[in-house]
């Protein structure tokens, strides 16, 4: 075996030629934990391919990686720079360059085998798809697939066309539209890889295949005469029905907010009709078009920049050394406490789960028992692993068990006196170094900290429900919270695999405060006489996961009413009744319609069939107004949230625009196509957003009035996420 490090591409790819004439093309980008496609690595890979094709002593090549994964896809920074800085023809040339390189592999008369030693995503998997054979590893954690759609993009290196030709429309479409990643076993079943072997046998298996490969195995099905993709033909009645339904389903899910999904369907449809080389060109053109859309750029920023930054704890105080977290306490074994205990134990941390008595605490642990059992049934967990998770949770009523905890999270009822009581009991046994966190979603942290002995070690950790599924934790810094507490809280959140955002202490913090404006705006529309169905459709069509009135029912009108009353008490004369608070009060107090759980809220919930808007709802509003265009309502519902998010920035509640965006998208599902509320403002344009707010304020009230600060930003064209302007094409 002789090793050659190719000069091209800063040593990103190594070529080793074995004595058997089989070359190993090993991706290993220097200074990175994962391989990515970028100009350097692609140049190195191209040089390796040239060498394999040009050297008569080389019989074939294995493409693999020296990292734990295969190739993660295109370099995000490169993609973002291209999106912002390149003209359309420049972009097309770049994309076609990659397509041509991959096509050379596919059309080569020497076998290329992709030895997928780990996860292969996006462009990385597209490279593999162009190879003649793909071998994955038996590793339940590895994933292969084309996830582009999840970040507002589409495949651009042949993925959509090879999926279509390998799987047929009906199988390819959902994988592409949902950006689904598959474990190797599932990918094998789907036909996306050809074999899965234990990791140690990967290269040997690849060598064996190359040794045995007949010339026919080097000609892809679609390069043989008479090829038609498997499955339905869009030009037949049956195929037309299937395509039409696929289009409609996509629209139902996306509400037309994601240009990439439309483009994926376009290239799958057209790709069926034309030969691969034409189809690849079409895919490249649509990819370029999509890459340049504001939606793709916003989603890329949120997923590629803001989210990784938060996950890497970019805002963690640097001067606090990381100290392991071995044991935590959870006070209150209700729904939230039980969930927090479960995710913590699953992350390998011991949990003392405390409630008023042993039975209540044990009931909280039962939650983890049920979750683990379900995971074992679905083979996501082995029985031994489940036992270990359960073994980490100690349910008790005895606060003494908290001794030695690194962190205690209080998740009892939202009652100040109760919280003060359990805080005191916990602090009595905790070491001076322990951090105390409250999972309150409504009570100001600084107020709760007043009851604590060590307010500098008191912090808010706002989990979302259900804890297992919701990826966000909102960390609230009280007035006296110190750097050590913040660092420990962030370390903990990362340890349990969730994404932290950091906010400062005010009523509703960041997420609850902004989220409330969405609900409020929907109720104000109702109070103003707008047809309820139109309001609900506007919410969904703006990209919100749940319509505003339906959401009120889910949250429960009774709870909203209670919070309104509590706020009125807390704020005193500063509290302002609005048409929304009055309407909610009437629903709860006079109509007895308190929400979904009671089967009566803004909707009726019949025993059978779907919920229907309460027919008498329109009567509550007084005069029905002529229906405004739905676009106006969508704008209102998004603008009010974006404006509130901007106010949070202005008031210093949230300091990082990226945190504001991911907090919204992960926390309450804020229209993901926008990238988040501040990305939405940038997308609209700072000046245009201010103008829209002024227009909305004139029509709908002063809640839309932009502050002097925001107006100044508008005048200066200040973006929340500064970026390079797109070059004109």
């Amino acid at each position, binding site marked *: 075996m002789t090793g050659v490090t190719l000069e091209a591409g800063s040593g990103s790819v190594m070529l080793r030629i074995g004595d058997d004439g089989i070359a190993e093309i090993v991706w290993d980008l220097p200074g990175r934990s994962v391989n990515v496609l970028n100009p350097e690595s692609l140049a190195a890979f191209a040089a390796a391919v040239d060498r394999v094709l040009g050297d008569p002593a080389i019989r074939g090549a294995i493409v693999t990686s020296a990292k734990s994964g295969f190739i993660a896809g295109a370099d995000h920074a490169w993609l973002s720079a291209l999106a912002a800085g390149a003209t359309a023809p420049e972009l097309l040339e770049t994309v076609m360059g990659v397509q041509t390189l991959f096509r050379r592999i596919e059309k080569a008369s020497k076998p290329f085998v992709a030895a997928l030693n780990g996860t292969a995503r996006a462009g990385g998997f597209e490279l593999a798809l162009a190879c003649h054979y793909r071998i994955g590893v038996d590793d339940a954690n590895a994933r292969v697939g084309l996830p582009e759609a999840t970040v507002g993009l589409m495949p651009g290196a042949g993925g959509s066309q090879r999926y279509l030709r390998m799987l047929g429309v009906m199988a390819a479409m959902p994988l592409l539209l949902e950006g689904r990643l598959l474990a190797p076993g599932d990918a094998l079943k789907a036909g996306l890889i050809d074999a899965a072997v234990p990791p140690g046998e990967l290269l040997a298996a690849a060598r064996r295949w190359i040794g045995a490969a007949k010339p026919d195995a080097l000609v892809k099905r679609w390069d043989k005469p008479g090829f038609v993709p498997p499955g339905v033909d*869009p*030009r*037949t*009645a049956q*195929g*037309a*029905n299937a*395509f*039409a*339904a696929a*289009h*409609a*389903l*996509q*629209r*139902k*899910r996306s*509400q*037309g907010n994601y240009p990439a999904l*439309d483009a994926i*369907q*376009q290239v799958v*449809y*057209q790709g069926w009709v034309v030969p691969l080389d034409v189809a690849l060109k079409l895919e490249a053109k649509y990819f370029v078009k999509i890459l340049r859309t504001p939606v793709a750029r916003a989603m890329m920023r949120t997923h590629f920049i803001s989210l990784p930054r938060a996950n890497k704890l970019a805002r963690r105080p640097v001067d606090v050394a990381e100290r392991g977290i071995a044991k935590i306490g959870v006070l209150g074994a209700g729904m939230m406490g039980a969930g927090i205990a479960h995710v913590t134990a699953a992350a390998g941390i011991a949990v003392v789960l405390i409630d008023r008595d042993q039975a209540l605490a044990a009931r909280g642990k039962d939650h983890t028992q049920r979750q683990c059992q379900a995971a074992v049934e679905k083979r996501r967990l082995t029985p031994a692993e489940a036992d270990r998770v359960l073994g980490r949770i100690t349910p008790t009523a005895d606060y003494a068990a908290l001794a030695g905890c690194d962190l205690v999270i209080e998740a009892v009822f939202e009652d100040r006196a109760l919280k003060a009581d359990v805080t005191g009991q916990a602090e009595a046994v905790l070491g001076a170094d322990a951090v105390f966190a409250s999972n309150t979603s409504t009570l100001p942290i600084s107020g709760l900290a007043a009851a604590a002995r060590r307010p500098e070690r008191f912090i808010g950790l706002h989990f979302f429900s259900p804890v297992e599924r919701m990826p966000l934790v909102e960390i609230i810094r009280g007035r006296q919270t110190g750097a050590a507490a913040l660092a420990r809280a962030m370390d903990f959140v990362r340890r349990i695999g969730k994404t932290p955002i950091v906010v400062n202490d005010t009523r509703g913090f960041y997420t609850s405060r902004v989220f409330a404006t969405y609900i409020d705006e929907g109720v104000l529309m109702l109070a103003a006489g707008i*047809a*309820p*169905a*139109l309001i*609900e*459709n*506007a919410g969904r*069509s703006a990209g919100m996961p749940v319509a505003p009135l339906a959401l009120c029912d889910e949250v429960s009108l009774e709870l909203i009413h209670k919070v309104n009353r509590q706020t009125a008490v807390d704020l005193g004369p500063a509290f302002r009744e609005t048409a929304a608070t009055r309407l909610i009060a009437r629903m709860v107090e006079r109509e007895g319609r308190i929400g979904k759980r009671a089967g009566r809220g803004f909707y009726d919930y019949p025993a059978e069939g*779907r919920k*229907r*808007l309460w027919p008498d709802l329109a009567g509550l509003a007084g005069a029905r107004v002529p*229906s405004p265009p*739905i676009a106006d309502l969508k704008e209102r519902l998004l603008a009010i949230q974006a404006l509130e998010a901007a106010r949070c920035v202005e008031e210093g509640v949230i300091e990082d625009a990226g945190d504001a965006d991911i907090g919204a998208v992960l926390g309450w599902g804020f229209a993901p196509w926008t990238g988040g509320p501040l990305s939405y403002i940038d997308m609209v344009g700072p000046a245009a957003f201010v103008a829209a707010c002024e227009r909305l304020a004139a029509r709908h009230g002063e809640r839309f009035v932009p502050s002097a600060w925001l107006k100044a930003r508008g005048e200066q064209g200040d973006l929340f996420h500064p970026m390079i302007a797109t070059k004109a094409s």
Partner: protein
Amino acid sequence: MTDCYVYDALRTPRGRGRPDGALHEVSPLELATTVLAAVRDRNALDTGLVDDVILGCVEPVGEQGADIARIAALNADYAETAAGVQINRFCASGLEAINMAAAKVMAGQSDVVVAGGVESMSRVPMGASGGAWFVDPAIAFKSYFAPQGIGADLIATKHGYTRTDVDAYAVESQRRAAAAWGEGRFAKSIVPVADALGLTLLERDEHMRPDTTMQALGALAPSFAKIGEDMGFDAVAQLRYPEVEAIEHVHHAGNSSGIVDGAAAVLLGTREAGTAMGLKPRARIRSFASIGSEPCIMLTGPVAASEKVLKRAGMTTADVDLYELNEAFASVVLFYRDALGLDPATLNVNGGAIAMGHPLGATGAMVFGTLLDELERRGLGTGLVTLCVGAGMGTATVIERL
């Protein structure tokens, strides 16, 4: 401008559009040939006088492909000088063929034209000709494509027609069709279809269910609930009509037009040509129009088409004695009736496609003939015939007896 006169109109009976239907063994070529031959034979028509044969056909592929109008004219032993063209205005193709024929005559560029349509839905099923409309996402999205049944259900939802309303209309359609057949009101225009031995295969519309009751219809499950809810088409329609909370799926096989096989032909020409043919004109074409309407709801076009065609004729609804609106779906008729404020006793007086079926390309010419026959039978003067059309269109024609 030259006037265009109607000299004859006839049709085959409509056979159930299934393999067990009486006309399934008859090719669409034979169906078209049957009516072309009949219009020649019963008028002793010298086909050397025929300038053109225009036939509507909605799935012009396979047996119905390659310009079936010309091919059927040849097969019917028309003079080889009679040209032929197949046209497609979806469900109004048969009426559009008549309107195009009239346009040629009125423009002075043709003297005699045979117009009509043919559709063997049992042999060339709906959707056979493919198309970009619902398959190519570009236009599927832009036009908020949803199948016609969703449009029909959406009309019912938006305008408050309940399941009872649409079922009641269907029962009445069946009753009227049965009564019309019972009294022989269609006898003048029906051309029985014969087999290779000359034995009669079908002489009566096969699709009718005269004993239909509200109770029987009430037992039928809605046809479009599943595709609407499970395949996403309801959501697509709601994107276009966001004021709708949920689409009420009220249509089913019993209150929608039936799938059938059949053909129809109408003889049109100038007054002079009539003299040359030795025929007396039965009616004059007063005006005609096709319009485009909102494509997602798709089926509301007849209202605008009728308003336009009346305006062109210098008329109002008060001037029209009888209306024929193709019964694509019950809600289409109820919406049309209410939008124009019509007396139900003047609309579809002999039933329609809910009872007798809707052979897509031929229906326009069939209901045209039905209107003419009924105006004559009742001794009335003016009639309006119209159809809703796929992709959001409407076609209408006003005729006037002489």
